[in-house]
């Protein structure tokens, strides 16, 4: 009479007593989780794993039975069946704790180590199952209430020893137990039948499904169960995982044990069904070291992570070489863990929101993640947004731009090193469009450099997605110079006021000073202190208003209010991408590739080889001697725009390249696109086929080639 509860195993009701492990109840009922193999009660043998309540690879010898549990057999060597319906997963909580030292293992050596240094102990028998040791060191432990991440200065691994499991023919039969499990089963009243204890490695087990006899030496003993007590082996998975970290190993786990005799036959890695013959085959094929043998045979890569096979791999190699090789490298995880457990405490990178985020949402904008920020893609009518820029005035949120202040006696020299232009010729109050190259001469980023007054102080803008990388890059490359950098990307808002009536709108808000193209000035707009920068990305008269981000909302609203009768309309990224494409302006990362030199991008006019020893200079000089192999070109067609990424084909059917940007130009009444096109004998073809339609190569920009409108 058991009388505590029932769980189901493959649909069959299995009674259990209070506090009993699943495995004990299963064996009492004459069932076996995996159909056979030596069971150990230590949570290391792969023979007791099952799917429990939808979680695969659960060690039933470590899991206390609960009423209503759904347990399913998970045949050894097979992957669990993927659920047809995604299980309901609750986030697993994590607790971060910090110690000087943590002892893993609550046995004799662990307790002694803990007592001597006053360190806490984590031990599986007390509900703390170590999943792995990570650099830090950090010890990740699974408990009944979630994960615990122990951040420590030093780890003491005192995990003791494991029972050696037998490798011989018949070692996959039912009825094979380690002494500890046999003791547990007998204490629980499980009838094992006729038992025999073997202390020497058996020749074989015999039986059909269940063991009926064991052969040791010349002796054959009939039985219903075999208690296998053939020795121990260091439980050193965590010790090996901690190699190179601040990890000490004590007790049985630290012992360099003599491996068992090399078996002639049998399943050596039950997890992957690797036999001794399989090891021999791998050896014959030349995989003659521990790490190679593991990879070739897969022994040691399964559920038990080598708990069964690693001593036998040692003896297998020693038998052939006479050398005792160290066991193979161990990496987290040491125990099976769910994705929720692995992900516990992890957070995806937060996407920043500009100081106008709430304003955009209130205006009904569709927000999207672009360039590493939440940005308005479209407000309500992209054609109206486009039209406002081309024919009236519009405002756009460009607060996402990378923004840096540069100061110091070597500020000019620092910038000179970073960009391929003569920074000394940028006068006070002037600005210049710049590229930033890497050592290979490939374009990393683009932006603007603005010189402040007469002093050595500059302001630099870069692309929205490039600021964090750029900060590392510029600091790294100028560490030897007397220069100060400040990344103010997150601290400053920026609004682009653009369109033929942009100057008129700003005048209504107090900014009436004529500001030529590529000039900038500090001035108040609507009583907000701004750095006003005259440039153009849209092809129309444009002013960027850089300002303290806390005042973005009021500046935005003032522009809307003052320009209502001018038709001021905010524009999103969808409209902006069309506008800039008509001007042939590239977006680094979209139109550039990993190997885009300025020449390939048709931006070689931005490289001044007389400007000093900038990053990428030598690569540019070398690659300039090579024939041009591809180029970013402008294409136009009469049909609808292709999708971005569409392949371009030559007229003879050969591959020509691909489209990076494409849009329908309402102003030009045709499709316009940028595309990488292969050059043949240094020349790019005049026509290619894209989506079955002939498109023509044209000079850039498509719109207002003389720049009359941008200059106003």
């Amino acid at each position, binding site marked *: 009479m058991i009388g505590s509860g029932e769980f189901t195993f493959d649909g069959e009701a299995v009674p259990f007593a209070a506090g009993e492990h699943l495995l004990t109840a299963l064996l009492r009922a004459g069932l076996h989780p995996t159909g056979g193999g030596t069971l150990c009660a230590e949570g290391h043998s792969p023979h007791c794993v099952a799917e429990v309540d939808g979680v695969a690879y659960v060690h039933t010898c470590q899991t206390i039975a609960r009423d209503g549990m759904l347990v399913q057999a998970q045949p050894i060597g097979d992957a669990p069946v993927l659920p047809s319906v995604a299980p309901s997963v609750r986030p697993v909580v994590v607790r971060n704790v910090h110690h000087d030292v943590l002892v893993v293992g609550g046995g004799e050596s662990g307790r002694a180590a803990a007592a001597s240094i006053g360190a806490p102990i984590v031990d599986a028998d007390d509900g703390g199952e170590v999943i792995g040791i990570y650099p830090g060191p950090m010890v990740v432990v699974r408990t009944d209430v979630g994960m615990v991440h122990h951040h420590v200065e030093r780890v003491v691994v005192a995990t003791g020893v494991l029972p050696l499991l037998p490798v011989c023919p018949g070692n996959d039969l039912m009825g094979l137990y380690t002494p500890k499990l046999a003791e547990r089963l007998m204490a629980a009243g499980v009838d094992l039948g006729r038992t025999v204890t073997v202390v020497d490695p058996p020749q074989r087990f015999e039986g059909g499904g269940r063991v009926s006899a064991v052969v040791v030496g010349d002796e054959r003993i009939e039985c219903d169960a075999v208690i296998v007590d053939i020795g121990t082996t260091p439980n050193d998975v965590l010790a090996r995982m901690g190699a190179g970290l601040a990890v000490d190993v004590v007790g049985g786990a630290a012992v360099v044990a003599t491996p068992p005799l090399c078996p002639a036959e049998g399943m050596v890695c039950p997890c992957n069904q690797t036999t001794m013959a399989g090891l021999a085959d791998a050896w014959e094929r030349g995989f003659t070291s521990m790490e190679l043998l593991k990879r070739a045979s897969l022994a040691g890569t399964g559920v038990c992570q080598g708990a069964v096979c690693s001593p036998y791999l040692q003896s297998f190699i020693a038998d052939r070489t006479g050398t005792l090789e160290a066991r193979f490298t161990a990496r987290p995880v040491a125990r099976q863990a769910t994705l929720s457990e692995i992900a516990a405490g992890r*957070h995806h990178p*937060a996407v920043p929101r500009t100081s106008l985020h709430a304003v955009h949402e209130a205006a009904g904008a569709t927000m999207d993640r672009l360039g590493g920020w939440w940005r308005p893609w479209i407000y309500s009518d992209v054609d109206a947004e486009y039209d406002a820029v081309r024919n009236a005035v519009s405002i756009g949120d460009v607060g996402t731009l990378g923004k840096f202040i540069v100061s110091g006696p070597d500020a000019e020299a620092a910038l000179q090193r970073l960009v391929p232009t003569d920074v000394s010729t940028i006068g006070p109050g002037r600005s210049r469009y710049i590229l930033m190259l890497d050592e290979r001469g490939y374009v990393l980023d683009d932006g603007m450099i603005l010189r402040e007054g007469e002093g050595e102080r500059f302001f630099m803008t870069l692309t929205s997605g490039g600021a964090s990388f750029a900060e590392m890059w510029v600091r790294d490359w100028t560490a030897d110079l007397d220069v100060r950098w400040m990344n103010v990307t997150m601290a400053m808002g920026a609004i682009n006021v653009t369109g033929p009536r942009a100057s008129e709108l700003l005048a209504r808000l107090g900014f009436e000073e004529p500001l030529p193209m590529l000039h900038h000035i500090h001035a108040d707009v609507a009583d907000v202190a701004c750095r006003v920068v005259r440039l153009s990305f849209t092809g129309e008269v444009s002013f960027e208003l850089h300002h303290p981000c806390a005042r973005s909302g009021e500046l935005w609203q003032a522009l809307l209010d003052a320009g209502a009768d001018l038709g001021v309309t905010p524009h999103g990224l969808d409209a902006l991408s069309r506008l800039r494409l008509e001007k042939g302006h590239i977006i680094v990362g979209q139109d550039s590739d990993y190997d885009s030199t300025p020449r390939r991008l048709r931006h070689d006019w931005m490289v001044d080889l007389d400007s000093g020893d900038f990053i990428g200079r030598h690569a540019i000089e070398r690659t300039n001697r090579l024939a041009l192999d591809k180029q970013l070109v402008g294409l136009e067609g009469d049909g609808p725009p292709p999708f971005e990424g569409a392949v371009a084909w030559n007229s003879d059917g050969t591959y020509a390249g691909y489209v990076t940007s494409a849009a329908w130009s309402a102003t030009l009444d045709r499709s316009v696109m940028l595309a990488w096109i292969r050059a043949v004998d240094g020349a790019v073809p005049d026509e290619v086929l894209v989506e079955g339609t002939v498109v023509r190569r044209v000079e850039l920009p498509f719109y207002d080639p003389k720049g009359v409108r941008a200059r106003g």
Partner: protein
Amino acid sequence: MAEFVVARELVAAVRIAADPNALDTAEWPADATEMRLAPDEVLLLDMLDAAAPEPHAIVFPDTGWVRFVLSPEDGARLFEGAATWPPPTLGFGQGAIAGIPAKVVVGPERWCIVVQAVLADDFEDRLGSVLT
């Protein structure tokens, strides 16, 4: 605003990038909360301006920070659930909390956590998921 947050506020601050030696010897008003972000950068909370500690220093009135004020109990719970680094016993520390770059000043009666305004909404959401 979630119940556990004692206060969330935009904070007046001045950020200064300067020669490290100049920052080492600079003296700030007694009511400013100093956060030494890096050898060459300091953030001073509750100030609108500051004297440049050396001629080439960048002194930047920085309105891009939000301060969360927590009780010591909630602060400790937040670190336990969402930070892989230990909080300072008292004073300034910085690192990721719930995956978001944060500065913290631990005081005997309150913990001030300062994050960039562009990430403040995310931080508050994550703070809520840890503390509730």
